[in-house]
């Protein structure tokens, strides 16, 4: 099975404090560290596992400046066979539709049976997969937490829905899926793994190579544009209990009693 996985380099927000810069044009990026979007990493692992089971290849594609190469390489160290780095000034400022348009061109140049994206990213909204599928006229399923290859033409997928239930679907290939965390346990990639793939050439493709008309992408074509960043105004918030632990406990018990917090 030929699998394409779309990945994105994002600031690692787990321990980083995301703050807005003084002019509100961006977040403070000086002290941030970046890594591959967590959801995308699960998608790559899933692709590798499928390939190891049924054969084929895994290609990782990422849109971004020169730094994006780092995450492509990391995913190749995990076991992806090929990498494609999409970089062009004309890509900048694209909205979700623009990125989906660029990715569609990549799909058109290949022969992929399965296209995976992460279900979401910390700085995004889980839109590119669904748009890409619609542009390609492929079936789509979001929040996928199980993939079972039935044969060369069909797969069975589970979607995570409310209540922790799983919605099972059968989908014809080729298709696009967005992958939810927890679908697998991604393997570890260390410095050694990355060094092993350090010399592999990752082709860089621009709008020209892809045959994408620049009028359909970039800031000019974007209907949705981010204007600024700001820290949301805090509402009234909770009544904070202060004092010694004993005092807090006493007050809290009183409140809980009043609200029926005891049986």
């Amino acid at each position, binding site marked *: 099975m030929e699998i394409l996985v779309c990945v994105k380099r994002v600031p690692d*927000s787990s321990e980083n*404090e*995301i703050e*807005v810069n003084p002019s509100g044009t961006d*977040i403070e990026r000086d002290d941030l560290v970046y890594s591959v979007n967590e959801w995308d990493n699960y998608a790559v692992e899933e692709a590798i596992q499928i390939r190891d089971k049924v054969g084929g290849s895994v290609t990782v594609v990422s849109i971004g400046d020169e730094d994006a190469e780092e995450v492509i390489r990391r995913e190749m160290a995990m076991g992806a066979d090929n990498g494609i780095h999409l970089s062009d000034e004309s890509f900048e400022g694209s*909205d*979700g*539709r623009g990125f989906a348009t660029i990715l569609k061109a990549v799909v058109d140049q290949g022969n992929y049976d399965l296209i995976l994206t992460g279900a979401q990213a910390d*700085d995004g909204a*889980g*839109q590119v997969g*669904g*748009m890409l599928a*619609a*542009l390609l006229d492929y*079936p*789509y*399923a*979001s*929040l996928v937490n199980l993939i079972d290859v039935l044969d060369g033409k069909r797969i069975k997928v*589970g*979607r*995570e*829905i*409310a*209540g*922790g*239930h799983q*919605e*099972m*679907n059968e*989908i*014809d290939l080729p298709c696009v899926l967005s992958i939810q*965390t927890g679908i697998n346990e991604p393997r570890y990639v260390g410095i050694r793994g990355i060094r092993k793939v350090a010399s592999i050439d990752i082709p860089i493709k621009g709008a020209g190579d892809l045959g994408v008309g620049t009028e359909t992408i970039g800031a000019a074509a974007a*209907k*949705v*544009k*981010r*204007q600024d*960043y*700001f*820290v*949301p105004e805090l509402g009234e*918030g*909770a*009544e*904070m*209990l202060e004092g010694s*632990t004993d005092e*807090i*406990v*006493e007050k*809290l*018990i009183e*409140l*809980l009693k009043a609200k*029926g*917090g*005891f*049986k």
Partner: protein
Amino acid sequence: MPEQIFAYILHKNGNVDDTAAELIHAANAISPEASVVAVVAGSGDELQAVCDEMAKTYAEVWKIDSDALVYINAEVLRGLLVRVLPKNPVVLVPHEHFGMDLSPGLSVKLDAAYLPDVVAFEGLEGGLLKAVREEYSGMVSTHVTCDIREGAVITIRPGAFQPDESRDAGGQVLDKTDEAVDGGIPGGNRRYLEIVEAETGDVDITKSDVLVSVGRGIEDEDNLEIVFDLAKSMGADVSCSRPIVDAKWLEKARQVGTSGQTVKPKVYLACGISGSFQHMGGIKGAPFIVAINKNAKAPIFQVADVGVVADIVEFLPDLADAIGDTK
């Protein structure tokens, strides 16, 4: 200015989802003058009941009734909606698992803009809609503009808008089925099979009046004991946030949130839970929320009624002891 705004109504087993009454306020926030049309898809009597219910809130209700919609598959619905909706429509969809499945592709098929996961609108000027979104788990917000002149599909964060409870619209239900299914049922390349129910644990937290809910702040699986001790002293049940289930420390049936259970307790004690919107999305019925978290900046303190800044591993045993003493 759009003349009409369409609101996609979620429902299940004949019950209307909470978001149904929120979308009309979201539409009003975009443009107070626009008329708001509820779009309801499904099949049979249940669908009719939902449409009738919606007519109390929306002046106009569009009904799409098909056997192919007994269980609604986004691939099928998307194709039907494209046939029914007018040119350049503005469509609101709740931002949850179905909305995420349906909407990005719908925007492409309508050749409209896609504006996901909006929490507020701040005006519409010359076709440019200004909206507020959150990024990085709500640590920062952004203003975005969206050109809606050629239509837009906008997903609305559940709970971000107040529900409309006036229920005096006296609206009419229009059957759009014929238009929708003219040309057959689309989306045959993704077929719904079944729902695999989550494993139910020994407790049904959706029926609990008092929940002691534990999050990442518990740090270690062995520390869960102190949470159960506290719950026992209060006569409460223990629920948790997603990281606890991901770590396999508690069963999925105890998870509160959009990907877990929706609970309606009277009192909700959030222990070491930061309060992501996905988690808060699982709490309904406006309970009395007490938040205990060692990070004074945790978003949970914004939504809680009472807050305590403390390490739960230290604080909870003290609280449990004191409650024990009062008995």
